[in-house]
């Protein structure tokens, strides 16, 4: 088989989010608000979809030419890509590499699926506890509804 020559160039300074299940990179980008970040800073975001990976078969990868995303912010990636790795690069050197960790609580990145929940009627940012890791199950701090699977709908920032 011929090697497929498409790659994403190395970044000199920034963050690499690797080992994302194929097809999930665009969602992660929207949940993290990378589009807005790029617009505000002029930094380049590279999103690779369906790359070959020895461990995952196929994977997505995101490279962000910016170091401002904190470890806590990046841990929400674990909700969508539990095996993702984060690499921080500064001046071409890897300064930190770690796996994402599922956080105990998440903020306003998900919509409560209960239409009678106060968060769907008042201007109040959502807050959720992670009650089960697999399958990922969240509990709304306000209405106490527990939900999982397709009921977890992420707020996509454009």
């Amino acid at each position, binding site marked *: 088989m011929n090697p497929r020559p498409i790659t994403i160039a190395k970044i000199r300074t920034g963050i690499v989010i690797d080992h994302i299940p194929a097809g999930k990179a665009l969602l992660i980008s929207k949940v993290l608000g990378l589009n807005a970040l790029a617009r505000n800073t002029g930094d380049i975001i590279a999103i690779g979809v369906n790359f070959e990976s020895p461990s995952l078969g196929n994977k997505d990868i995101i490279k962000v030419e910016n170091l401002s995303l904190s470890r806590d912010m990046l841990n929400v990636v674990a909700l969508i890509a539990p095996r993702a790795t984060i690499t921080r690069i500064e001046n071409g050197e890897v300064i930190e590499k770690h796996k994402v960790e599922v956080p105990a609580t998440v903020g306003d990145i998900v919509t409560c699926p*209960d239409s*009678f*929940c*106060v*968060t769907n*009627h*008042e*201007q*109040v940012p959502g807050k959720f506890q992670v009650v089960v890791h697999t399958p990922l199950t969240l509990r*709304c*701090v*306000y*209405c*106490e*509804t*527990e939900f999982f699977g397709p009921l977890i709908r992420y707020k996509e920032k454009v």
Partner: protein
Amino acid sequence: MSFQGRDIISMNDLTREEIDEILTKVPVVRNHSEKKRLCKGKVSAMLFFEPSTRTRTSFEVAMRNLGGETGGFYDVSITSVTKQESLWDTVKIHDGYGFDVMVIRHPLKGAARLAAEAARIPVINAGDGPNQHPTQTLLDLYSIKETQGDLNGLTIAMVGDLANGRTVHSLTEALLKYEGCRLIFISPRDLAMPRFLIDKCAKAAEERGASFVEASRIEDFITEVDVLYMTRIQSERLKERAAVEKFRSIYRLEASMLKDAKPSMKVMHPLPRVTEIAQDVDATSHAYYFQQAGNGLFVREALLALILGVIE
């Protein structure tokens, strides 16, 4: 253990020890020699965004019995909420008026939690839509303990609309905190206990010797139950009128059905009842729903006294 300044939003926030502590204080406050002066100078804000009869009246009388006062609103149509003022702002404004505690009822789930975040004063949830109504659960637990002497090792049957009734959900979760309870869920299949609560029962069965069964006929269990907790079939939740009529005729308790019950067995109901308890049950020694509703007053007195820090 101090409850002074504490919010009471959900039964899930209370440990078994805290529940026991509140229940222990009910007769203390009820029979307190200085009761009329306990809350002198204290004022409770009543924010009722939704109609209520028993909860509202009993909170008002409870505060008056303790020497305190109440203010606020019971009819949202005469407030700025009609000018689209947010819940957050409405709570903030009342918080600034010098009240000592806030009692809130709202049709949306989670509204009381949001109010507690907005307010500096303690907030008591008097019902947030179909979610929580902790003072109802506390009065249910108090009534069960009062009549059975203990909350451990009881056999409790819940009957009726178990899918939509918040009182039975909350009561189930509270009883699972105790040892060795046996829960019998009697409902039409369409109105069965939600799956997540059945899962919690299964977990408690492993951890604390609880057991549970889902069934469809009251008569099959009448001899073994300590408490028969009846609920209303909520006609507003069922699409077909015919279904409501059918369920109501099946899940109806009559005095003749109680002849083999234990002498100590009590029938409870969060009220209002419609047709699920025949009036001839009222005259039996098993009927306890009116005393139960009366206990709502004493439980709310105790909660107010604890939260306002006027008793230890």
